[in-house]
């Protein structure tokens, strides 16, 4: 229990008749990178904003670093860094001035220049915020959240709008923070981001958590099977792939023992001198699981 940074039991939040969060339980341990996934309107942001102290819950118990965030204690906010989806900073201050301003609110902040370097804004150090691109402003958001050297970080879609290079860089930054022992609560739309960063993910739809676990375990539990694909060769098929489904000119088969099936298939082809065109072996990804779990919810933008 002492190891738990965030504990949530039976959390509910209703807006009139709408039940945004319908009774969820979460337990996040110190040093974990936890990702909350879900379509827009699923209750993701409501949940995070209750943990951050922006919203008051309707029911349930919530503890963040031993505090009830609804009390809005200054001591709790000194130990937490927050990257929200849509927050701004004064457009007329420079990058360095902005980070220094926020750093001054905390009892033991990080070195300002070090934080600016860390998020890759060294060259923009003395530029006014109004001159930054969208991606650069997002990096500044991350810098501000890191300024106070928090032990717990909330990152609400931290890489939205980043180009692929900047995203990789942000992942490195977040990965380094995790190595320093920080606890990170992440929400994201990008499944590759969750798969890359998170030790554990939870999928939320309609205010309820429908799946939870390490990304690899989730994939195994929900769509464990490897898929083999190839273009239909002329003539008969070997027995092991006869029950595969045909998609256009392609055979697609989900298998439990990919090594054995592949061996049968390829030796069959080699014996007959057939080249299996377009042969592919794919493992399902977190994205496949996510799409499966949130089917019918997707596009609820």
């Amino acid at each position, binding site marked *: 229990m002492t190891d738990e940074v965030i504990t949530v039991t039976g959390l509910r939040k209703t807006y009139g008749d709408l039940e945004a969060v319908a009774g969820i339980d979460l337990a996040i341990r110190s040093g974990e990178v936890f990702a909350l996934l879900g379509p827009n309107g699923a209750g993701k942001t409501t949940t995070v904003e209750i943990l*951050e*102290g*922006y919203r008051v819950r309707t029911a349930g118990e919530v503890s963040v670093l031993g505090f009830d965030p609804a009390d809005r204690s*200054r001591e709790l*906010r*000194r130990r*937490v860094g*927050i990257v*929200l989806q*849509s*927050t*701004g*900073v*004064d*457009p*007329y*201050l420079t990058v360095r*001035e902005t980070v220094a*301003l*926020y750093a*001054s*609110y*905390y009892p033991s902040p990080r070195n300002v220049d070090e934080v600016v370097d860390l998020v890759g804004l060294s060259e923009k150090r003395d530029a*006014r915020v109004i001159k930054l691109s969208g991606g650069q402003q997002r990096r500044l958001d991350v810098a*501000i959240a890191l300024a*106070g050297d928090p032990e717990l970080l909330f990152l609400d879609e931290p890489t939205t709008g980043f180009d692929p290079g900047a995203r990789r860089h942000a992942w490195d930054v977040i990965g380094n923070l995790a190595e320093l022992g920080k606890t990170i609560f992440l929400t994201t739309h990008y499944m590759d981001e969750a798969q890359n960063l998170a030790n554990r993910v939870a999928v939320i739809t309609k205010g309820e958590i429908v799946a939870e676990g390490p990304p690899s375990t989730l994939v195994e539990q929900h769509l464990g099977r490897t898929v083999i694909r190839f273009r239909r060769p002329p003539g008969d098929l070997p027995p092991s792939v006869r029950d595969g489904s045909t998609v256009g000119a392609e055979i697609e088969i989900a298998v439990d023992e990919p090594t054995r099936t592949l061996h049968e298939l390829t030796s069959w082809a080699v014996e007959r001198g057939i080249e299996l065109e377009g042969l592919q072996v794919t493992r399902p990804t977190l994205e496949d699981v996510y799409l499966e779990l949130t089917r019918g919810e997707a596009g609820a933008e």
Partner: protein
Amino acid sequence: MSDAGLLAQQVRTTNKAFWRNPASAFFTFAFPLMFLVIFTALLGGGNVEVAPGVMIQQDSYYVAAMAAFAVITATYTNLAISVSFTRDAGILKRTRGSPLPAGIYLGGRVAHAVLISILLVLITAAFGVAFYQANVPTGVLLWEYFVTVVVGAMAFSALGLATTAVVPNADAAPAVVNAIILPLLFLSGIFFPLEGAPQWMIVLGDIFPVKHFAEAMLGSFYGPPLQFEWVDVLVVAAWGVVGLALAIRFFSWEPRK
């Protein structure tokens, strides 16, 4: 950093950002002087009856009235509009998630607005002395004048913060704020002396703080035969307390949906 240090830093930061937006800073300073020049050019030169049988120089009247107008612009108008903008830009929400206490953040904004008001009053008075032979108050009058400026600036700041609660979004802020303050400025004798105005206008003006503020500013700036009344300052202060209570109850740190 101590809370006092944090407050001083908020004032410095607000000030830095204020001067780096030259258009906004320019108009805050230019409007009162521009109006002073226009009104005195149009209506100045003679005497004006400010109460039955009490005549004062029109030019001096406008120097005092425009100083009152400057305080209201720098506090009420500026805070209501700029806080609405910072709210819609998500700056308030971010500050709310940081350990900085709400009172220190808003206290810094108010303290900056009060300091800008004092600077504007000094500039307006200096302008009046240089171009309109205005007399600067001395002795007890100067003390009364200073208290009036500070109490007025704080009260109109509180009312400005309260007004953000009825501003639906930043784009609408200037319209909402002007719809509230412009009629009051006319009702309160800031632009034209109220002598000879219809009775309903006098009564209506008496309810709101702008007229009491203007009269206290005029009375302490000009001196006899005008009368400075502490009750005017008290009415302004009471409105400030009401504004503060409304702001505490209804202030929003997030954009209103």
